[in-house]
């Protein structure tokens, strides 16, 4: 049985012995919330889903960013965080990369959007990005919508339920970065509907029957109609 609680910084989520995730601090035998959010008290574990806050990089996150700078060794990517992502040129051109022979801006120019994965991140250095893997690399087209990074899990939904539903109903291809950047491709009417649906998700992320609400909003629209 999982119990939910609304908490603000300084609130006691539970007493006793639990496993606990981020945004929670242990003080004696009390577990304290560090953010405004919804705490879940499970049989042995505690979780706090914050309702507001910046994006902090985590290894393995998929992010969408914009090339902000190019230096001799790689690209500096704005990933909507307080830290810039760095994509080393050797990750793109391979081991034989040499600043003399390769032109970095021919691959990704200043201002290009790229989908990337966070390869590694630790507190002492800026996060390192990688585009190895399927689907990563330059994003050629699409509308960019920014949402609060804390609402991303809600937009995706359980096993992608929410995002798949919006995608099916609007006929759009939607790509969500963990950093709160969303890229949408599709027919113009679909784009408008998708943008509105995403906005509703963001504004009403805390409400109970969000899936139903979005479904009702998107109503009759089906792929290709």
């Amino acid at each position, binding site marked *: 049985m999982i119990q*939910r609680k609304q908490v603000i*910084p*300084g609130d006691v989520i539970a007493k006793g012995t639990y496993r606990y995730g981020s945004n929670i601090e242990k003080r004696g035998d009390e577990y304290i919330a560090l953010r*405004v959010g919804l705490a879940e008290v499970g049989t042995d574990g505690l979780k706090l889903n914050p309702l507001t806050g910046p994006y902090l990089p985590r290894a393995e996150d998929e992010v969408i960013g914009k090339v902000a700078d190019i230096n001799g060794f790689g690209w500096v990517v704005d990933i909507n965080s*307080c830290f810039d992502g760095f994509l080393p040129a050797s990750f793109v051109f391979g081991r034989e990369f040499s600043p003399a022979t390769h032109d970095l801006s021919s691959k990704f120019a200043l201002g290009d959007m790229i989908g990337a994965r966070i390869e590694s991140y630790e507190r002492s250095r800026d996060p390192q990005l990688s585009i190895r893997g399927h689907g990563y690399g330059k994003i050629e087209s699409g509308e960019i919508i920014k949402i609060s990074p804390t609402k991303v899990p809600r937009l995706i939904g359980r096993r992608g339920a929410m995002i798949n539903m919006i995608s099916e109903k609007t006929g759009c291809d939607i790509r969500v970065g963990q950093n709160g950047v969303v890229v949408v491709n599709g027919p113009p009417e679909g784009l408008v509907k998708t943008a509105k649906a995403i906005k509703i998700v963001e504004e*009403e992320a805390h409400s*109970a029957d969000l899936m139903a609400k979005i479904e009702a909003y998107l109503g009759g629209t089906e792929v290709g109609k």
Partner: protein
Amino acid sequence: MEGLRLENKKKKLIDDKGKRLDGRKWDELRPISLQVGLMKNADGSAYIEWGKNKIMAAVYGPKEVHPKHQVLPNRALLRCRYHMAPFSVDERKNPAPSRREIEISKVIREALVPAVIVEDYPRTAIEVWVEVLQSDGGSRVAGITAASLALADAGINMRDLVVGCSCGIIDDHVVADLDDTEDKEGSGDMPVAIMPNLGQVSLLQVDGIFTRDQFKKAFELAIEKGKQVYAMQREALTSKFFGGEPMSTEVEEVAE
């Protein structure tokens, strides 16, 4: 002679029935209202009206530190600016930071730092702007109260909220929450900021002369009143984030 005459004319701040100039009892707070998240461009914001005080607080960050040489490798740099608008007082105030504002900026920063988990945001800066639109007594504690709400609204990890309240001495009596006149005419002023859940004090200043008993009484009163303000602070924050619709009781449909 002139001085003596003025001395005799000194206003009585508490009447025979124990009421203060604005009709409050000795331990009564001025009316307080708080709002969270009104400014879209800031990462977090709050607005407080405390008596005649009208104060806006905004938080930006965590963000990159400029100039770069100020970067702290293991924690965030918390910057605070307390500023009074030129129209916040009776006579136009020069908008350049005064000696007093620089000092208050410093004490606000030091009142907030123990609550913010700066170690969670290495190499970044968190900026807190406290803008006084209309000023009355006790603007630093009102500023701290609003600033900590703005930090929570920005989603910065905090051990606790910080809440302030001031106490002071007028006509030899310890009273809570001095307004502007009482602050100027009274003989002592003690702003206190606390972290109510942690049970810690993060700001304690004293101006004027307190006896040992008065000090103890004023300090305890400030903490008790601070806890009252905390209840309002809490209400403002929860109504912004959880207000309106009832919450879902089932576990959220979220991605792994």
